[in-house]
């Protein structure tokens, strides 16, 4: 049988406040017993006990909401604390964040030989690669690849 959602909500609420509801029921029972006394005594006593039960239950419900709110605040603070601790750990380990990169972009200091005479802010151009040198490098690279393949076949 499928329990309707509203009924389920009420049952959950009753389970949450089970002890308080049990006390209310007990007090109502005591009030009913008090009605057995002469009306001059029984009625005011019963009324007081019922009032105590209702008032006490209201106090309990409001306190529960307050406690739940405070617990949620504590949870939020703990999460925030955890996040801050993590950030602190990351920063302390030397890992530079993107923000740090943006703020820590230093200008490269040129080597002395690259600095042009008479112009400390300027640098010399790097030497260009000539075609003969390029061909020699290509030949050396092909020989190295063949040796590596032979070594793999032997292995």
């Amino acid at each position, binding site marked *: 049988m499928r329990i309707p959602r509203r009924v389920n909500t009420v049952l959950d609420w009753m389970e949450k406040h089970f002890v308080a509801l049990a006390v209310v029921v007990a007090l109502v029972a005591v009030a009913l017993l008090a009605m057995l006394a002469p009306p*001059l*005594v029984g009625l*005011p*006593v019963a*009324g*007081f006990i019922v*009032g*105590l039960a209702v*008032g006490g239950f*209201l*106090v309990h419900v*409001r*306190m529960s909401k*307050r406690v739940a709110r405070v617990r949620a605040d504590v949870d939020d603070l703990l999460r925030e604390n955890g996040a801050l601790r993590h950030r602190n750990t990351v920063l302390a380990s030397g890992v530079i964040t993107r923000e740090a990169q943006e703020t820590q972009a230093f200008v490269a200091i040129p080597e002395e030989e690259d600095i042009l005479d008479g112009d400390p802010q300027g640098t010399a151009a790097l030497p260009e690669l000539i075609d003969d040198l390029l061909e020699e490098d290509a030949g050396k690279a092909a020989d190295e690849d063949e040796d590596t393949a032979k070594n793999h076949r032997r292995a």
Partner: protein
Amino acid sequence: MSAHSGAAPGHERAGAALAKDEVDLPTVRKAVLASAMGNCIEWFDFGVFSAGVMTSIIGTVFFPSGESGGATLRSFALIAAAFIARPFGGMFFGPLGDRIGRKKVLAATILLMSGSTFVIGILPGYGTIGVAAPLLLLLVRLTQGFSTGGEYGGAATMIAEYAPTDRRGFFGSFLELGTLAGYIMGAGLVLLVDLGLGEDRMHDWGWRLPFLVALPLGLVGLYVRTRIEDTPAFQRMEEEGEKARSPLKETLEHHWRTIVTLIGIVLLLNVADYTLLTFMPSYLVDFLDMDDVTAQLITIGVEAVMIAVIVPLGALSDRIGRKPLLTTAAIGFALLSFPAFALMQTGHPAGVALGYAIIGGLLVLILAVIGATFPAMFPTKVRYGAFAIGYNVSTSLFGGTAAVLVGSLITVTGTNYVPAYYLVLVALVALVPIRLIPETAKVPIDRIGTPQAPEAAGSGA
């Protein structure tokens, strides 16, 4: 707590550390003990003076001989006389405590109170010095009242300002624990001496013994009070230069509304308190024809139960707030006073005890929270004075007259339900200021009423 500043004694450093918002529990406990002892002595005197056997003895030793009913009323009149002086004591000692500190004033009041009670024990009777006897007794009672006027306000202020914020109700309840303990000690001692010595010796000289005990109690209280520093809140106020230049003027100008509210709540407290503790023992004997010993045993028994529950109720108020307990008590008195006195009219000890217990049970709900509630109604710079004035004006008007008024009305009207009607009336009146006062549980006492005050505990009922 450390004592690194060289030769300063431990308790001096404790006070300085507390001034920096640290809570040193041993010092708090010492302050609570020192404060509660004064209240204990005040009510020890009451317990002795209002014990059934003592009211008739006092009324005959210090006055020309007459009927026992007349002697009892004369004793009640002497009790009422002390209350006339209380507001003046409050107006004198209260603002003085706001100016020079709580500690010095409380040392003076406890010495004066216990000394006055001791003097009653050594005063010659009417048979020895004639009309001078009642006049001297009246002078001593006025002195007692004057010193008591400064005692309760200061004691409650000291506890409230020393206690940690989240346990102010718990520690504040010890003040009224002192009340009940003092009353039981006084009434119990009278009962023991009466049973031990017998009627004749009790009437001749035995009645003096309980009064003589007050002085050593007072000296112990004085010793404890001189061993603590002034309250952290007062020290902070002094350091920040926020003391009121004229505390009395500021109190009456800016806080008269709160004083009126306080008077309204103390009205119910005092009528219930003094009816139960001062009048009821004689009510049981004179109007319900109960014997002395049974009446005293019922009184002491109910108050022993009240002592057992008062501190837990004070702790409960730290969780759910002060107002729920005050509201429950006021509504309870309105609904249950009549049934309680109806039970007492059955004449059966069980019925009398149950009716007495209902009144006591409702009273203890108020007693448990007033030590924390009343000081929190005023700012630090006028707290002692404003509280002392409001509390003692109400006590003088309604507490001191309760026994005489109720006793006289019963005699005039012929109905034993007069105390019930009175309690119902004052409960309905007190319900209004109880609903008006703000909840102050878990709010630091320095910040009550300020924008920085945190949310109070409890439901705000």
